[in-house]
């Protein structure tokens, strides 16, 4: 028999509160994406010279934002269902989506950190070679 921890009323309420804010954050991420798309369209009509770069940057941020928003919304949906119906499988799915959300964010930070360090390294090498 697999050991299980029964959630108290306080824990259930805390999880439920987190689902509310996760839902808001997820929806707002999608709204933000929509606004970015609107800015891209405006740039298209104004014949912005850097439009191609903007499109690439939008597509990249759209994929990342959508993955994060979908995982937040799935966390909210499954956790709420799991708490209300005492369903462990739904809670597991909720925590899985929460993990994916934080993993994506962590990996993005790792990539950003790597690029930043690479930039510093290139800057240092350039400085040394110019001396």
């Amino acid at each position: 028999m697999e050991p299980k921890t029964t959630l108290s009323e306080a824990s259930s309420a805390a999880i439920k509160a987190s689902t509310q804010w996760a839902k808001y954050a997820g929806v707002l991420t999608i709204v933000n994406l929509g606004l970015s798309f609107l800015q891209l369209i405006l740039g298209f009509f104004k014949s912005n010279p850097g439009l191609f770069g903007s499109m690439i940057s939008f597509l990249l941020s759209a994929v990342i934002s959508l993955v994060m928003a979908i995982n937040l919304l799935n966390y909210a949906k499954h956790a709420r269902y799991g708490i209300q119906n005492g369903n462990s499988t739904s809670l597991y799915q909720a925590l899985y989506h929460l993990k994916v959300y934080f993993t994506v964010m962590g990996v993005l930070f790792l990539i950003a950190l790597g690029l930043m360090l690479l930039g510093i390294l290139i800057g240092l090498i350039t400085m040394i070679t110019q001396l």
Partner: protein
Amino acid sequence: MQDQTNSIFETAEVDTSSIAQLQSTSRWSFFIGIIYIILAALMVVLTVVIYANLDQVVNVLSSASGVSNEALEFLTANGKWVFLLMMLIVGFVLIINAIYLIRFRTSVRNFQLTNEEKQITFAFEHLTKYLMITTILSVISIALSVVAAVVYAIV
């Protein structure tokens, strides 16, 4: 009605596989929290460097195209205080976010060590506060995007 809701809450359970997911989540949240602290520290260093070399920064900006004289005058007058305030706010938000993420990790680890159920409550309370800040920041970001879109459409 209230009693019925409570009884439904009490039947909710988390098994070992769910706890494993929570532990993995908390490790990433700790990492992100540390990154936020590093970013806040870098911002402090950057602000100090810019303040120490404000004249040189203004000279570089004046030679760059697209920066008006009005903007440069504003930067050397009250603009530097606005810049300082902005950096302080951003740094403060980063630190607060980092604290909640690290506390989330600590609570999950305490649950792992002591098996006290109340640690799950603490963990999710910290997570809720983190998500709350994220939501507020998203609202600010949306407001700024709307302003930018309107200005871009008009100009």
